[in-house]
């Protein structure tokens, strides 16, 4: 009944080729097929930002993205941040400044902020607030998240992407 289509892309630097149903959503591909469960499902409607991943470096809501449409791109998830098991400066700042509480929104915030800091190594508080406005956090009031992004920005370490 369901046709399959082929899909080629890179996920966290690793080439991938597989056949998927044409209606496969990127979030399901990541979580269910590839077991990359760091990317979270909060609403399935693009309203919370928990499922944010980078598509060729651009923050994208994976719950609203058909997997087939990202053919040939580089997908980066939270599992792809950092090298050799080391945390990035941004991840360290999140840990040390108390920017995670329940942690469910954290991967989405990290992906959005990683792209922000790559494009704008020094950012103002207002720019951070605007960049993060598509991500919802119910625990922190965003205060410590914004502080963490500012701290990482000040530390000058540019975020590493595969």
């Amino acid at each position, binding site marked *: 009944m369901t046709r399959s289509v082929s899909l080629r892309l890179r996920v966290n630097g690793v080439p991938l080729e597989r056949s998927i149903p044409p209606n496969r959503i990127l979030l399901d591909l990541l*979580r269910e097929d590839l*077991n*990359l*469960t*760091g*990317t*979270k*499902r*909060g*609403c*399935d*409607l693009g*309203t*919370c930002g*928990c499922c944010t991943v980078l598509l060729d470096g651009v923050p994208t809501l994976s719950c609203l993205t058909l997997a087939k449409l990202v053919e040939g791109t580089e997908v980066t*998830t*939270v*599992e792809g*941040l*950092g090298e050799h*098991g*080391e*945390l990035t400066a941004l*991840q*360290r700042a*999140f*840990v*040390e*400044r*108390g920017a*995670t*509480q*329940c*942690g*469910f*929104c*954290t*991967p989405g915030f*990290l992906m959005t902020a990683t792209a922000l800091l790559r494009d704008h190594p020094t950012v103002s508080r*207002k720019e*951070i*607030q*605007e960049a*993060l*406005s598509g991500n*919802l*956090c*119910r*625990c*922190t*009031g*965003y*205060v*410590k*998240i*914004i502080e963490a992004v500012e701290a990482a920005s000040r530390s000058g370490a540019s975020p590493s992407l595969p």
Partner: protein
Amino acid sequence: MAKSASEPGGPTAEVRSNPASTGGYRLIGRRLPLVDAALKVTGRAEYTDDLKRPGLLVGRLLKSTQAHARIVEVEVSAARALPGVAAVLTGERFPTPFGVLPMTHDETALAVEKVRHYGEWVAAVAAQDEETCEEAFRRIRVRYEPLPVYDDPEAGQRPVAEKIHARALRDTNIQKEVFQHFGDVPRAFREAYAEVKVQGRFAGVNHGFTEPHCVLAEATPDGRLTVWSATQVPHYLHRALSEVLGLPLHRIRVIKPEVGGGFGGKSDPFPHEIACAALALETGRAVKLLLDREDVFYVNHGRHPTRNTVRLAANEAGEFTALDVEALLDGGAFSSFGVVTTYYNGVLALGPYRLPAFRYHGVRAYTNHPPSGAMRAHGGTNIRYSLEMAVDALAERLGRDPLALRLQNLLSANTQTVNEFRITSNGARDCLTAVRERSRWRERFRQLPFGEGIGVACGFYISGSNSPIHFTPRFPQCTVHLKVDMDGGVTIHCGAADIGQGSKTLLAQVVAEVLGIRMDRTRVAAVDSDTAPVDLGSYSSRVTFMMGNAAKRAAEELREILSRSAGEILGHPPEEMSFEDERIHREGSPEVGVDFLTAVHRAMEHRGALVASGSYESQPMGGTFKGAKAGTAPAYSFSAYVSHVKVDLETGFVDVKKVWAAFDCGRALNPLAVEGQIEGSIHMGLGQLLSESMDYRGARLMNPSLLEYKILAPQQMPEVECLLVGGEDPEGPFGAKEAGEGPLIPVLPSVGAAIHDALGIRFLDLPITPEKIFRALERSRRDGGAKKPPLPRETTES
């Protein structure tokens, strides 16, 4: 993994507090990152929906399309026959009612005989995949016979044609009615020099946690059932599963993975948890059931839509003489925590002010709305808003400065309220003076330009409910087991649920402090009912106080054992042993000592296993009258906030510029975590005040999505200055009290008061949307224009 992340007490951890402020403790009082933060920033923390089991089936629930209707028939044979469907269940299969409070069991796993709100679940399907579940739903025929729909708790107080629940009072939809009277309220009002009356109206709000409810249940051939669930209270879930499914407790294992936020919304045992477990039993397999966001809004259990009336009287000196409160709560379709909520909406007005006379009439009525329940600062939020508005109005009437009037009326420490709450430590005065100074109150109040304002409000909250919900058998409220292995690692077993607030970190901190070891020597065993002793759950702000005390006692028991072992090795009496830097040495002579592991091994020579246990049970308290236990707590947090707002006079948009948040949580065990609770509370409270609302048209919820249910975005957050002013509580662990819920309470009225200071208009209908402000300004323009209220006659010196 980076070093800083695995060593929360390590050198990279930011330490702003000085040793004096930490009372000489190494870990207590320090700004420590949460022990699970490294897992959370790498996507490695496991939430229920991240788990997979062999042969896992997908579970889904069919929603009711009626608000109130008799179920004539649920025809499921066509769905059962669909290939790929493993089980279809309806309400009759497990009809035993359950609920969080033992005296009001009125929820069922799936609707039985009738449905009581849109979105209530009428059937459950387990199938090979989601598409098959959806197809099965299309083949299920539910025949309803519509019943009268009740969407107004006011009407629910009068006789109704069809009671929503048979257990409602008389021929009404009243679920709970409370009368209380202390002192002589009528006389106090007769003799009052001044009195004010405030009528508040509050929309219902939802917890809005980011992780939707999720449960995974697996039945195994050894006759056991394992349930992983995103729950705040694994112990109540355990009990409910046992009661409804008819399995003994020891054959059910409840595991709580990471939970993506709770705020009270994951503290009831839920229908979907029972239904999923039932599907697992029916199929003999594993079934995972994830709610979509719409379902999260329909199952709700959020803050009650509320109407209240507050009358406050004072004598000529400005002393409050009586408080008279009426509250009407829209309970929605089920009871949930409703009995408690009904009491709390009155009695949580009884601090931090001296109130010699108090009368309360509270009603909670069932309606055909999704059920209301407990939400952060449960029962204390809406009454606080109206009370603080009344205090402000009274100050205006008396020509007094509202901050000074509050200072004048504060309860002292070590006293009792008129309804016999035992007050011990009380930092309310320090809170008020701290925000007065930091906000430069005297220069700003009534003196900012029109459209800009500043407001003050106080709050207090229970630090753990003194009476447990279940009192048979009489367990301690929390027990902690410690087990030390031959590797010297200390495993902490505890049933308390870390839902992001940091209770795992607190356990590690307390145990490591007492034993003089590094936090990374401890490991907190996530909640697993097979190994964890009972904890009554993460609600009523009880965890820091109760779990903290239990953990401290367990660690002290272990310390005694290790003191004896180290004493034996060193040839000195155990009472001379001191624990620090991973060593046990003779007090005053660090060179005469052994390392921690050596002492552990010595202790094991004699005992084999090295285990210790500690528990906490609060002492009996409260009066003997009906409802006397509601609101009793072994300690209370106190707070005072000042907020500064600027209102856009063209659009009615409120820009909250800054909140000075003074909070007495006793000794802050981890100021970084406490600030996180305060900042998060301010965000949540401002949401309820300014934009969040469960919007109903009749019984139909109009906005069950995070797009239309408006939670504040980062740009809308004010600057927050946290002022932790508490001393030490005499009974809290290391002097600590709660900080999880109390911080929400004062933000709403302090901003409400600031808007009044800005515009001269007191808004009493929440949320205060830009539209309401805009219309109020339009009206006042017609009446000659809004203007700043006058400066009080009283100088703002107190």
